[in-house]
């Protein structure tokens, strides 16, 4: 579930054009299909997915449970932890794609437009659980056409180490949206939580910024961090139409400058350089007291809950309206499947909180609205040791009342936008150039034809 941004660490294997070209000549037959598609034998489906070893185990168990419920159907898990896009691309190119698979949404939109994915809209009447999900989690590529939803939901949250806060005498971050810290309060508290090797804070004489022992907060400048703040400031990445960038507005400039200032002016947050590529996970950083607070996705809960750490979960700091984003990779069904009906049933099975333990262990959040509104259904996935007491407000209510969808999942042409956007934001991240000097030309570039509107936000 970690595949939220494209620049995420990819694992270490190599594909090549050569292999692909070599495969392209092969005939189209699904991998491992026993060829008895209609012959009354067993129907075989393939489910391709990424994830950690914990996720692999949970998904494999879910697939086994599905096989037990559906006699005559076997599902082959195709676990692909590394170089996922490369392999999926190669399989599609050689017409050997799986029946169902996790997918990055841009690739999903593209394949859907090419007619390669099953439209799930016709199944809405038959399966209310498919029809009644959080609106932001659907991927509509056209009127009445959706290739499905996210595999699960995620939001962005504020995580913190309780011992670090109590040592500094800082009250814990609010877990209710309407009590969210203002940006200034957030920064003030980050000051109190930042210590150099001699125990000095950044606003004290003799503070040594080269030897910081504990940072107040780790936020970075990724899109999943700046978008909630833009929303809170009353704007979004683009205007409503998705054709005009809002990055050159005073509001956006303020948000980006504030994020950069955390690192370079206030020195309460590690720079990308200080953090280093291959940085340890959020859990490790909180545990080792490298940082006191971290802005990271809900999926972090899985690790945090398993670690022996006294942690807490809060809502993000706000400007005006408290806001977070909903996000998550997609699951899609290839239209080449020989068993569409069974594939749709598996689709509904695979993200069902009563069938998969990834919800109760903290990795995933459910998709259907009822899991956020009906107390009985909320208990299904949150009443356990993994979910802290404040989750009801900081996780459940926050999602349903204070979220908007992640723009990477809604904008057209996002791959081309990303190629311009990411390097530009890296310049701000270097701390040598004021945000305004980067954002104004960037907005002009985005407005020069890269922004091509949004995908539909609903089926009508």
């Amino acid at each position, binding site marked *: 579930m970690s595949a939220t941004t*494209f*620049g995420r660490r*990819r694992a*270490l294997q*190599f*594909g090549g*054009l*050569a*292999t*692909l*070209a*070599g495969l*392209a*000549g092969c005939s189209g037959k699904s991998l491992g299909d026993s060829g008895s598609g209609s012959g009354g034998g067993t129907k075989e489906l393939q489910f391709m997915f990424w994830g950690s070893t914990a996720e692999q185990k949970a998904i494999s168990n879910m697939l086994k449970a599905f096989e037990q419920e559906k006699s005559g159907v076997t599902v082959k898990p195709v676990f692909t932890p590394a170089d996922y*896009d*490369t392999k999926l*691309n190669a399989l*599609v*190119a050689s017409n050997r794609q799986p029946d169902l698979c996790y997918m990055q949404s841009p*690739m999903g939109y*593209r*394949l859907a437009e*090419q007619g*390669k994915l099953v439209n799930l809209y016709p199944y809405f009447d038959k399966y209310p659980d498919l029809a009644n999900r959080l609106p932001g989690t659907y991927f509509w590529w056209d009127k009445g056409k959706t290739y499905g939803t996210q595999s699960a939901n995620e939001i962005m949250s504020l995580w913190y180490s309780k011992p670090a806060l109590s040592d500094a005498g800082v009250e814990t971050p609010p877990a209710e949206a309407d009590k969210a810290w203002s940006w200034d309060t957030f920064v003030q508290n980050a000051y109190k939580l930042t210590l150099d090797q001699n125990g000095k804070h950044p606003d004290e004489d003799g503070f040594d910024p*080269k030897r910081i022992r504990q940072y107040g907060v780790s936020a970075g400048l990724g899109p999943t961090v700046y978008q909630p703040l833009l929303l809170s400031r009353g704007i979004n990445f683009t205007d409503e139409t998705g054709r005009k960038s809002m990055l050159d507005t005073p509001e956006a400039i303020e948000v980006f400058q504030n994020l950069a200032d955390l690192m370079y002016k206030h020195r309460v947050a*590690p*720079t*990308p*350089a*200080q953090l*280093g*590529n*291959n940085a340890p996970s959020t859990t490790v950083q909180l545990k080792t007291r490298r940082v006191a607070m971290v802005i990271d996705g809900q999926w972090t809960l899985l690790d945090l809950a398993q670690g022996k750490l006294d942690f807490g979960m809060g809502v993000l700091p706000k400007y005006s309206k408290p806001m977070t984003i909903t996000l998550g990779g997609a699951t899609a069904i290839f239209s080449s499947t020989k068993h569409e009906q069974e594939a749709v049933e598996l689709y509904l099975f695979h993200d069902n909180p009563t069938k998969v333990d990834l919800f109760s262990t903290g990795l995933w959040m459910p998709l259907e609205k009822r899991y956020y509104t009906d107390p009985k259904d909320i208990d299904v996935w949150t009443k356990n040791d993994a979910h802290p007491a404040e989750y009801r407000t900081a996780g459940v209510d926050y999602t349903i009342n204070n979220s908007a969808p992640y723009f990477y999942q809604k904008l057209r042409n996002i*791959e081309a936008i990303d*190629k311009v956007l*990411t*390097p*530009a934001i*890296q*310049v701000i*991240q*270097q701390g040598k150039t004021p945000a305004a000097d980067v954002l104004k030309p960037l907005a002009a570039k985005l407005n020069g034809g890269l922004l091509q509107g949004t995908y539909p936000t609903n089926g009508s």
Partner: protein
Amino acid sequence: MRAERRWGWLLAAPAILGFGIFTIGPMIASLFFSLTDWQIGAPAKFIGLGNYRQLGHDPLFWKSLNVTTYYTLGVVPLTLVVGFVIAMLVNQGIRGRGFWRTVYYLPTLVPAVASSVLWIWIFNPDFGLLNSMLRQAGLPTSSWIYGEQSAVPSLILMSTWGFGNAMVIFLAGLQGVPRQLYEAVAIDGGGTWARFRHVTLPFMTPTIFYNLVTGTIGTFQVFNQAYIMTQGGPNNATEFYIYYLYTKAFTDSEIGYASALAWVLFVIVLVITVLLFRNARRWVYYEMGAAR
């Protein structure tokens, strides 16, 4: 005789087949793809030289070409000089010669991924080896691969650490320098410098040339560091050509365009190699008569 020939073909068959199936075949296929707008999932349409025309207007193509050239101009000369000097050193009659040779060759044996991960730590500005040493010495530190200006120089430095291959080839070359010539220089009253300048260097030019050509071809295809360490950043500072090609092919699924990129690189490297060979006639000395 005929049986021998048959055996010869038979034994060479795996190599020939492998080359045909996994190199020549895909090359021809990619040449064909480069003339189409093939994006994975969609049918390919023939567009002639459309991809090649588009290249000229693609800022990232130029950027990646610049970055790769910069990197090559840094790595190749450095590796040649360092490899040569160290080869000369371990070629002396010092004690534990074998040990030193092994030590200098070892980095070459470390898998690319492992050494990349290792260097990420070395380059860490906060607690990395390099900055810690600089700080101890009271020298200014650098942000290494995290700074736009310092990213490529950092990677050049890292690549030079793998000079072992060049060194081993130089060592082999040094073994081939005729001893009697050194004696002749000594009799004529020449010192160390004269021995190096008039015997070692001329005899080593073919080896230098070989390392120069293979080094240039290899460095133009640098990929691992960008893929593992920097993802082409910051601000495209390490957007190496092959890394760009890879993202075009496998993130954007634009196989047609990526194939065109591949062929452009092929032609560029081919031209450079031909130029190197042309120029070699002027300075490469072959004992057995005129150079090519």
